[in-house]
């Protein structure tokens, strides 16, 4: 139930380079590092350790596991050059503090510039957050097999009538 429609393309922030459908890590810290490597390689994060530190700082402030196998670690950091998200899906359970006390398999890492002039990108991240409040979206997220499937799932309008 988004009051303000976002008519921009989620593909602008989520590219295939920022998706890993076979996360290898077994711990929260390693998963965050593994996804951060994608952000660094893509040029969105300029200071690897600085970003990881900021994400872990946020982790210390409160639970980012939403339940239903999904976690949304995030860092608002000087180390971020472009506001975006990296998505990892694992074939195995990863221990993570979460609202249902269950491990997770889907990790959506939000990288947000410390001072973001581009509210457009923040709006796109908001759209992802709104999608995450939808149980059907979560179910489908766990069924994703390809990066294209994942991107088209994210492109879906939260209300379900989008056809782009």
């Amino acid at each position, binding site marked *: *139930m988004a*009051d*303000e429609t976002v008519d921009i393309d989620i593909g602008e922030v989520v590219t295939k380079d920022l998706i890993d459908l076979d996360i290898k890590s077994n711990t929260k810290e390693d998963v965050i590092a593994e996804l951060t490597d994608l952000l660094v390689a893509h040029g969105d994060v300029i200071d690897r350790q600085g970003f990881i530190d900021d994400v872990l700082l*946020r982790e210390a*402030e*409160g*639970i980012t596991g*939403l*339940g239903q196998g999904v976690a*949304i670690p*995030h860092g*608002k950091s000087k180390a971020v050059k472009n506001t975006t998200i990296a998505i990892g899906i694992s074939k195995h359970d990863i221990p993570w503090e979460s*609202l*249902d006390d269950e491990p997770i398999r889907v990790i959506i890492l*939000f990288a*947000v510039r410390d001072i*973001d002039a581009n*509210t457009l990108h*923040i*709006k796109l*991240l*908001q759209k*992802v*957050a*709104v999608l*995450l*409040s*939808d149980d059907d979206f979560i179910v489908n997220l766990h069924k994703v097999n390809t990066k294209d499937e994942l991107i088209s799932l994210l492109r879906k309008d*939260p209300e379900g009538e989008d056809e782009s």
Partner: protein
Amino acid sequence: MKIVGIAACTSGIAHTYIAREKIMKAAQKLGYDIHMETQGTIGTENALTPEDIKEADFVLLAVDIKVGGRERFKGKKVVEVDTNTAIKAPTQLLEKVVDKLGLTE
């Protein structure tokens, strides 16, 4: 039942918006009329109007930080929880609050 509320989390990126959506969906399912403001990293959105607040039976704050404009709720019943409580079980949260405040219709 009319409800107004605010969602706001520490970084104002994700939990704020997930909490808002979860509460809105739960409220609609229960047949309640609800307006939720967000105070996030890009400022206030879906700001509550004085009319919304005036008509509300109570104010629900799903917040992890100090929010702006609390003085708007002077004289109203205000219930405060953290965003994770709202995300985890929004329907139970609303039912519990309505029950506790003796607002059951």
